[in-house]
């Protein structure tokens, strides 16, 4: 069965420090992986995706994610967090046209 797991409900990090938001997946075949961000009182926005090619993908707002096939992971990273990065982050996998979303991780960046 297809699934996406975000093991952390919340991640706290100080501004300027690196951040990681974890995601693991389970899907048959080659995964199409995505990260979306939801700012308070705003809709979900696409951040980045992995379809094929280089395992390290770069996206909006300085975020990047690394596809690791052996660990079935697609962790979201940023070298230096900003207070404005505080939001709810969702990992998703596409399989057969449908998308399966994780439960979300709330990122809190403290000044």
């Amino acid at each position, binding site marked *: 069965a297809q699934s996406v797991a975000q093991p952390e409900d919340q991640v706290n990090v100080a501004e300027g420090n690196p951040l990681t938001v974890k995601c693991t997946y389970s899907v048959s075949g080659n995964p*199409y992986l*995505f990260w*979306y961000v939801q700012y308070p009182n*705003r*809709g*979900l*926005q*696409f951040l980045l*995706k992995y*379809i094929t090619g280089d395992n390290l993908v770069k996206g909006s707002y300085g975020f990047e994610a690394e596809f690791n096939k052996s660990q079935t992971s697609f962790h979201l990273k940023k070298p230096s967090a900003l207070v404005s990065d505080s939001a709810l982050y*969702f990992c*998703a996998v*596409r399989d057969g*046209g*449908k*998308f*399966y*979303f*994780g*439960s*979300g991780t709330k990122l809190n960046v403290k000044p």
Partner: protein
Amino acid sequence: GAGVSQSPSNKVTEKGKDVELRCDPISGHTALYWYRQSLGQGLEFLIYFQGNSAPDKSGLPSDRFSAERTGGSVSTLTIQRTQQEDSAVYLCASSSPSGGGESSYEQYFGPGTRLTVT
């Protein structure tokens, strides 16, 4: 260009009443999705339309829920005989087809309709 729009933005209804939620996708996007997001929860897939193919309704929680997409564009999600557990934010998203270049498979979300059943 215009993004995905949804109406109404908020809907309060009494238990047992029917409601219709509307989604206007981005022009040219052949795929359209409906999701439900309950407070503090992730996104729950409801239904998926792709072009002229039969929709994937596997996520609809009960036969009180139905959706249609007219002319390959606007979509309406209908909930009959609403229950309090139907209270949630209903999100619509559209995406361009495979082979659509750099933006393929990326979903563009509308602002959602917050449904409250009293």
